[in-house]
């Protein structure tokens, strides 16, 4: 009889994309699509592409919990799938914008030490604001390029409604998800 230690201590690497990450990303994207689709009834007409969508918190949360690639795919593929489900087509710049909303919190994931500590939640909330700023910013700017609208129209017609609703949903829901996730982490010893 002998004893051997089989612990390949895996470092929490930012850009790791193994089987687990494939699953988190796939599940995240599918969830984003389902939740968006389920809340489609809440769409406010006349706000451009902007709906009231609690689903926007998902790319942010998956980014915070599982890193930038998972966060990005959750938003990017998730938005594509949501549009496929609704039959809306394929709007690549809004898809990218949603991806960035998950990518940037994902970059912050290394700074998250304990999902329910005040400091970590604060850092996560900052990442939400930045993520939405860049994500929706990109989508709005490309709208300018595609439709030929001027800066004012794009800011007030496309960017601000999207920015404000997404930030609001993200800031309120993200801490709740983080606290819930911390319980799961402690339960499974992940």
């Amino acid at each position: 009889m002998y004893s051997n230690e089989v612990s390949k201590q895996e470092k929490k690497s930012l850009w790791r994309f193994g089987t687990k990450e494939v699953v988190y990303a796939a599940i995240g994207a599918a969830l984003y699509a389902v939740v968006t689709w389920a809340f489609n009834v809440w769409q406010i007409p006349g706000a451009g592409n902007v709906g009231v969508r609690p689903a926007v918190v998902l790319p942010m949360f998956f980014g915070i919990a599982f890193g930038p690639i998972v966060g990005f795919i959750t938003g990017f593929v998730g938005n594509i799938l949501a549009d496929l489900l609704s039959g809306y087509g394929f709007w690549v710049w809004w898809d990218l914008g949603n991806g960035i909303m998950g990518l940037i919190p994902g970059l912050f994931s290394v700074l998250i030490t304990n999902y329910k500590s005040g400091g970590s939640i604060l850092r996560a909330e900052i990442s939400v604001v930045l993520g939405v700023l860049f994500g929706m910013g990109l989508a709005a700017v490309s709208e300018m390029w595609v439709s030929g609208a001027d800066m004012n129209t794009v800011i007030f017609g496309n960017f601000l409604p999207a920015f404000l609703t997404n930030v609001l949903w993200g800031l309120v829901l993200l801490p709740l998800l983080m606290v819930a996730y911390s319980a799961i982490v402690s339960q499974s010893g992940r």
Partner: protein
Amino acid sequence: MTDSLPLPLVIRDLGFRYNSRTTPAIEDINLHLEPGQIVLLAGSSGCGKTTLMCCVNGLIPHTYQGYMQGEIELYGKSIKGMGLAEISKHVGTLLQDPERQILGTYVINEVCFGLESQGMPREEMIQKAEKALERLHITHLKDKETHYTSGGEKQKVALAGVLAMEPNILLLDEPLASLDPASAREALLAFRELADEGLSILLVEHRVEDVLEINPEKVIYMDNGRVVYQGDVKGLLETADYTRIKLPAQTVMRRAKGKPFEECCFAVPAFDPQSEPLVSFQDVCFRYKEDGPEVLHGINLDIRAGEVIAILGHNGSGKTTTVKQALGLLKPTSGQVLLEGVETRKTTVANVAKTIGYVFQSPSQMLFAPTVREELAFGPENLGMDKETVSQNVDWAIETVHLEHELPMPPLALSFGQQKRVSIASVLSMKSRILMMDEPTSGQDYWNYQSFMNTILQTPGFDAILFITHDLDLALTYANRVVVLYGGQVMADGSPYEVFADDEQLRQWRLLPTSLLKLNREMYAQTGQFLRAEALSQLAG
């Protein structure tokens, strides 16, 4: 054993401790599998059977890390240093929940998944997949969407996905957990057939009684991370703890003789056939979509105070759909459901909740609050109760399920069994008059589900209790009225004795007679009611 050919699987002095734990999950495991053998591994949850499986299929150490001792050999070759891909050529694993194992949108895609991962050319892949489907007699499912297959079909599809990779050893992790009796039997027969073709099967299951029907060559009983018994079936029946795993009723009755046993008593009020029905189904028909098929065909059912009703039926017979009509979650396409005289069409689900408390099957699908206390307060607050009442109800509910110490804990951090109890407490706290439960025992081992049912039925405060199940023994021991659904119709309605009178009839409803039923029938002249095997042993002189 032959000395010429090495055995498919040999485990020597195996021990394992997870990194996050201080005590080993398994210790001193020694066992081997021969070609064509089915080895049944029984034990209650936490006995280490899942850990043992993970050691064999390579998830330990590739996914879960810790300290391992001892040796595992596949065909004489140590698995140390083998990658998951190499192990998977010998060992196929069927996980507990086929819903989480199935990765393909269509059946054929699912069956090909492992072959795609091996980089196999397309033609060869299709050939192997078709062969696997044929082996399990499910070729007709090939082009179906996996999501729309039944529970029993899902299991076979998942198994076909494993078989396509042509392993010699199969590990089956509680494969009967989600199946109704008829599907479980079909699955077991399929396992026997595979073993007879030469596969070695390690079958983890606590429904021991069912597995015995396919004559496993060897049985192993584990407790607390150690092998307590290893040998033939006869020996197991004498050694294994009959409160931990489900043994045949005759065995339990014989062994329980003279041992102390407390019969569960119902806390619901006495039944009065003249009383006004609490819930009344009147010719309820239902279809999900206007142009879709009808799934309920004229259900008539009255529920009165004092009744403990088991709704019994195979997967897809319409049990849950029926109960959802009472809650107003679904509204009948024609006919009506009256709740204390009020039609469900004219009220809201939130209103119904004051009368009916409904516990869903899986606790994780409803738990969300940061503390158990808030979780329990959610229902009563929604119903508009004042603070003091809410607080009283919460305290009462948590005491009922004996989890007082967990009130400040997050529910999601609790174990599965505790979560199940929190989920029921979160319904109890609404102090509804009727309690309804969907598959109350699912996901729990034999010991836990017995004690769970005992607790619930002894909880005072309910006028009536109703539970959905496909477990015949559960219905016959815990209900005073049984309703059998088949294909969206009520086929039988009465006392367990009346409903379970005819074996042939039961088989037609895809319910299989059990040893406990047979025993109860034999002793009915003496008992006048259906009882658990332990109770019967007290009566048998």
